[in-house]
């Protein structure tokens, strides 16, 4: 598909729910290395709640539905990543509230607002080894694709590619925030757990759009 409409949102969140249910144990193990092992549980809870919320909602706009998804995540999973993800979907949704279809430009606007919301809420900088290190290249890549007039599927595929490279690069960093920060040097060499979540989200979006 070349644009997302309100009708597609339930399907997208069904796919996200499946992704995080499949990756539950992987994320638990990843967060366990320099964190508290809850990430797999909270992310799986988050997208189960978000899927249920968008199915139940009657809103006609994709942005509004993303906002509702964010709100449901805030209630379901008040962990760091839960709240940051909630903030991202709420801010991103708000940015595209007026649009009836989400093409490349709107997708770029969504991720820009998502990224900025997470930065504002979490007060991390790029390079601090957080989810922001993946959110930033996603936004940048989509903005470039929008400027170049690329179609949504191609744009998301490139964003996903940029995200996964950025995730790989987090291995070189030392954690500055959250529970991992206490481990300092021990966190070097490991990919950041929250950044991994962001990769899964954008990859699931890319696959959903490509398949649709």
């Amino acid at each position, binding site marked *: 598909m070349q644009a997302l409409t309100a009708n597609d949102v339930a399907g997208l969140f069904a796919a996200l729910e499946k992704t995080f249910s499949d990756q539950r144990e992987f994320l638990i193990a990843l967060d366990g290395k320099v964190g508290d092992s809850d990430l797999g549980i909270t992310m799986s809870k988050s997208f189960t709640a978000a899927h249920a919320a968008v199915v139940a909602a009657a809103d006609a706009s994709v942005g509004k539905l993303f906002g509702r998804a964010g709100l449901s995540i*805030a209630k379901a999973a008040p*962990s*760091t990543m839960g*709240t940051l993800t909630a903030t991202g979907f709420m801010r991103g949704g708000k940015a595209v509230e007026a649009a009836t279809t989400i093409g490349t430009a709107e997708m770029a606007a969504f991720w820009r607002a998502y990224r900025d919301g997470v930065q504002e809420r979490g007060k991390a900088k790029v390079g601090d080894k957080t989810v922001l290190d993946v959110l930033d290249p996603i936004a940048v890549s989509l903005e470039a694709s929008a400027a170049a007039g690329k179609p949504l599927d191609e744009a998301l595929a490139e964003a996903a590619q940029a995200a996964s490279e950025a995730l790989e690069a987090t291995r070189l960093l030392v954690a500055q925030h*959250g529970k991992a920060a206490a481990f300092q040097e021990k966190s070097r060499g490991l990919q950041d757990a929250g950044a991994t979540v962001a990769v899964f989200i954008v990859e699931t979006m890319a696959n959903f759009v490509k398949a649709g």
Partner: protein
Amino acid sequence: MKKFLNAPADFVDEMLEGIYAAHPDVTYTNDDKRCYVTAHPKKGKVGIATGGGSGHLPLFLGYVGDGMLDGCAVGGVFQSPSSDQMYEVTKYIDQGAGVLYIYGNYTGDIINFDMAAEMADVDGIRVRSVVGNDDAASSIVGEEHKRRGVAGIFFVYKAAGAAAAEGLDLDEVVRLADKARLNTRTIGVALSSCVVPEVGHATFSIGDDEMEIGMGIHGEPGISRKKLAPADAVVDEMMERIFGEQDYGAGGEVAVLVNGLGGTPREELYILYRRVSQLFAERSVKVRHVWIGEFATAMEMAGASISVLKLDGELARLMAAPARTPFFTHVER
């Protein structure tokens, strides 16, 4: 896992049901048991809210009551409550004089309390925050803003709660809470791990003859792991760090909190305090208030922490004030 519980997923809510059944002075708002509030809010008084993960009783909810706090958002075990729950507590406890949030310096809590404050702002409720960061072990001098909040938050609650009970306004309550925060240092030592019910096995492992100085109450790594030493030597090492950070001055006054992490018997806390009191006596510092017991736990974790609050006239007055909650009573003598 040897715990008295039914389904692990019900641990927190059933605990809360027990608390509400036992203590009519507390209740909940928004039909959500995890939005824990005093049953007797006082018109015109600054409201004080806290919140944080479960598994630390009497922290956090145990300090809701007269002369202390007005509400607490209750999270899962070692998990932050949601911004939504904090917001509901805020609405209930605001009695026209604004609300102060006092909570520990954990990313999840900060993010959620900030979000709740934004939500309350929409309703025109004035909210300010004081974030406890007393754990001297969790980062070096100069990076205090990165330090975790641990048992010493008790002093911040006590100062703010007494100030609010005196009828002071929000800015004054914030000033005093912040002074208590800045004047507090804590250092802990863990001897054993604990088990999160939904996880079912020990959070971390530690050798049979080892202790970890500075370990966090969720098992965050500390400063050093070494062989368990005699009690006096352990206290000396802990207090050396505290004395290195603040000068209490000959003739100065302090309040001391010796806190058990859960699995350590009260007998041992007194053996620790014996040495603490000797060290202050050597320095001619007067221990004006002392509390010894369990104030901030990590379920059945064995270990203890020592918190010291440097007193001045107004902090001494606030520490002396009466307080009464279902979990903590202080009577002025």
